[in-house]
């Protein structure tokens, strides 16, 4: 059967855990606080992933378990109540408190659902407490957002009004732009999950058509379906083509005339093509290797191959949900190696053997590869940057062309010729 070649491997992995998604979730909802119930490692992870230091008092923190908490569970629940109250006293503006499970809290089976329920009873009318797991034993990186949004689904008010619901964190400006475009093609009611204020939750019901903005929201999608919503399957809104198909899927679900959609989107496509042109000139024919991390790898590979002319050496993905990715897989060239899971050492062997022009990888691997003479792009940057939509296609391509342009700018003589002995070890 034609299509990409689906492969699997397992072994040591170099990926973030789901706690990392707090770094962008807390910025989306300024009235929410994310309290990880975990260890010093969890606190250190978020601090390090967040670019080490963010100014001001952050809206996330860790309730660090100590030996005393591990001794007896009843004690841990009392302690958690105390920590939550201490926190809310200090931060009276917080309206939603997410209790986030971690590896240690999962292993000792600390029941955060029960804790959330208990705190909800006590804080009713003031703060809503929900829980989810961001633990590394259960979630990878962006899956943390899936957990957080899934935890909000039961709280969404019910309404069967006809509406479009965009699910997944978007930059505010991108959200505004997409909303504006959907209105122009004729969709009246559009809302977002997560909302900009945690208390401003969108309604859901049989009239709700869901478009996922991100490919990692499997559980959230399932729960929304259970609430009566229809979840569309489409390529994800990365790149001009993907974004257009994504919007067209919504337009079709709302039975809007093709001509109207084309009138709005055609000029955007023309503009995107000219925005892409200079980047395509840099990227065309270049070979890219995507290591698994953000779960955006498949849609990005599709964009880079189809719209930027790049050659796909290997497309890694932490896990593969074939149903949700069906539209993306269908757009990849035949025989593209799609690798689910990871054995980081063997994968790096393949990187070295194939000598790609660009590697998408995590922050732990980027500089070591650069020192070996291989250009890289951080995958975490792709979840922080406003890259969704037709209008952003040029900016998205620029994220990949920049490292290559930079290599052309810096005198090659500055780097030693032998890549076997990195000088900056």
């Amino acid at each position: 059967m034609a299509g990409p070649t689906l492969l699997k491997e397992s072994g040591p992995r170099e990926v973030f855990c789901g706690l990392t998604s707090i770094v962008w979730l807390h910025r989306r909802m300024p009235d929410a606080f994310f309290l990880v119930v975990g260890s010093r490692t969890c606190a250190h992870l978020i601090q390090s992933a967040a670019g080490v230091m963010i100014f001001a008092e952050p809206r996330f923190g860790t309730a660090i378990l100590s030996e005393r908490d591990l001794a007896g569970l009843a004690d841990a629940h009392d302690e958690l109540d105390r920590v939550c109250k201490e926190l809310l006293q200090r931060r009276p503006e917080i309206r939603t408190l997410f209790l986030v499970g971690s590896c240690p809290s999962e292993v000792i089976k600390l029941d955060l659902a029960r804790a959330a329920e208990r705190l909800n009873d006590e804080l009713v009318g003031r703060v809503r407490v929900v829980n989810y797991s961001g633990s590394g034993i259960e979630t990878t990186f962006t899956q943390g957002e899936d957990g957080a949004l899934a935890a909000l689904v039961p709280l969404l008010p019910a309404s069967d009004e006809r509406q479009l619901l965009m699910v997944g964190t978007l930059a505010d400006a991108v959200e505004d732009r997409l909303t504006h475009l959907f209105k122009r093609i004729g969709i009246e009611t559009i809302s977002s999950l997560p909302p900009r204020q945690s208390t401003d939750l969108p309604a859901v019901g049989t009239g709700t058509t869901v478009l996922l903005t991100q490919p990692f929201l499997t559980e959230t999608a399932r729960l929304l379906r259970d609430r009566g919503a229809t979840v569309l399957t489409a390529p994800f809104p990365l790149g001009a083509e993907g974004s257009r198909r994504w919007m067209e899927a919504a337009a079709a679900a709302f039975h809007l005339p093709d001509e109207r959609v084309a009138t709005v989107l055609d000029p955007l496509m023309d503009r995107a093509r000219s925005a892409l042109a200079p980047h395509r000139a840099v990227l065309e024919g270049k070979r890219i290797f995507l290591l698994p991390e953000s779960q955006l790898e498949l849609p990005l590979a599709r964009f880079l191959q189809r719209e930027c002319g790049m050659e796909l050496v290997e497309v890694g993905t932490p896990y593969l949900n074939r149903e949700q990715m069906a539209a993306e897989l269908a757009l990849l060239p035949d025989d593209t190696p799609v690798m689910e899971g990871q054995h980081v050492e063997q994968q790096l062997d393949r990187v070295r053997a194939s000598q790609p022009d660009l590697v998408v990888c995590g922050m732990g691997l980027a500089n070591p590869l650069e020192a070996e003479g291989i250009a890289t792009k951080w995958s975490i940057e792709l979840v922080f940057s406003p890259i969704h939509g037709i209008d952003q296609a040029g900016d998205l391509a620029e994220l990949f062309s920049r490292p290559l342009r930079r290599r052309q700018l810096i005198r090659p003589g500055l780097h030693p010729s032998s890549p076997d002995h990195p000088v900056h070890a």
Partner: protein
Amino acid sequence: MQLTLWTYEGPPHVGAMRIAASMRGVHYVLHAPQGDTYADLLFTMIERRGQRPPVTYTTFQARDLGGDTAELVKRHVREAVDRFQPDALLVGESCTAELIQDQPGALAQGMGLTMPVVNLELPAYSKKENWGAAETFYQLVRNLLKTQVPTEVEHDPKSWQNQGRRPRGTLRGPSLLGGRCRDDVLEVQKLLTMHGIDVGVVAPLEAGIDDLKRIPDADLNVCLYPEIAESTCSWLERNFGMPFSRTVPIGVGATHDFLVEVHSLLGLESPAPDEGYRRSRLPWYSESVDSTYLTGKRVFIFGDGTHALAAARICSEELGFTVVGLGTYSREMARPVRAAAKALGLEALICDDYLAVEAAMEEAAPELVLGTQMERHSAKRLGIPCAVISTPMHVQDVPARMSPQMGWEGANVIFDDWVHPLMMGLEEHLIGMFRHDFEFVDGHQSHLGHTGGAGAADHSGLSDIPEKGDGALHWTEDGEAELKKIPFFVRGKVRRNTEAYARDVGCREISSETLYDAKAHFKA
């Protein structure tokens, strides 16, 4: 359970990683869940290393927990050994693995590996990063040297005198993510070499397993970072009789004391007391007239134990500052920090809650903060200048240029780094003098736009623009003309004084006469 927003130290296994990554030929197999690999970025991003730390993570997931996680550990150990062929293997666990009790260290020791295997037990729920680093270094050295421990201790640090060679010291404690270790090592090597003392093994930074085995060949251990190396130095002293120096050479006084201590341990004649004055610019710069303005500047100090103690001494003895707060997050160093604070008439702040540190900082109302990156942010919020003196590290704390803290050059670096955030002496006077000139008046834009001149922002509140609602006073044309003749840097003051005088005497119109009346009034 402790609510933590930012943390000064990572978990103890990150300390172990620091030792492994600092050395050559050491590999660390860490039994840890998926996600703990974040720690790699501390080395590749913050230290900007071009090599991955030598760590294999077992990265177990929930589905592995139902199965045989012990077998998973062994598989990763075997693969790591085959692939990396290390000279020594460290095996340990992170916080989550500690809970499932697979005892990976013992498992690895039972695998019949040919290289030394060190079983690291680092309690994640009670200890922290620096302790983990110290324990790892100690366990590694002890494992490699325990077979060499003599039955009778007969180490003589002065034996070089009879062996026709130069005395030899070894440096203990420099590590990755430990501060300015890279440059401190070079500076201390230079310092000791200049005094005819050879530097043998430096460890853990850049040391191999064979280097560690050679440690007892040296006459003396130099303990540069007690947080990391004191336990190892003590063990070497107890078992091999190797003495170690306890003075950390940060600052001119401490560098001198360090040299005296090392010379005396080795049976050398003490160096000249004025060496610091000749070799470092700090003493003269501090004496120079421009530094008069540093007198009594109120300084708040917080950091790891070593750097906080050093800063307190430099501030009080070498820069003429007044220390108004002193503290550390290193509980292991609480005792000496408490003693140093007491000697300065203060109570030490031993604490790892950065908000409590910020509160103490605000309470102490300092003019300069010497702290970590956390205090830098707190100081920024409070509008206080700050210099970073200690870990936890930020990419900015790994400068491209040579920038030690230790030795004579380190003292120079410290003078610049701590004094520059304050305004320079003459500059301060000039800004005071010119603050009423239009360049400093509120609303004036510097050539750089909004980001420009410190004076523009800092002194806008002191502008001489008449306050709103002050319309009762009126300057006549001839009054304004007279005012303009006054040098611009005192014009504002004259305007304010004249208006104050006019209000006092009930005069609503200010002419040149009023101005002279006022002048006479204030001179009288």
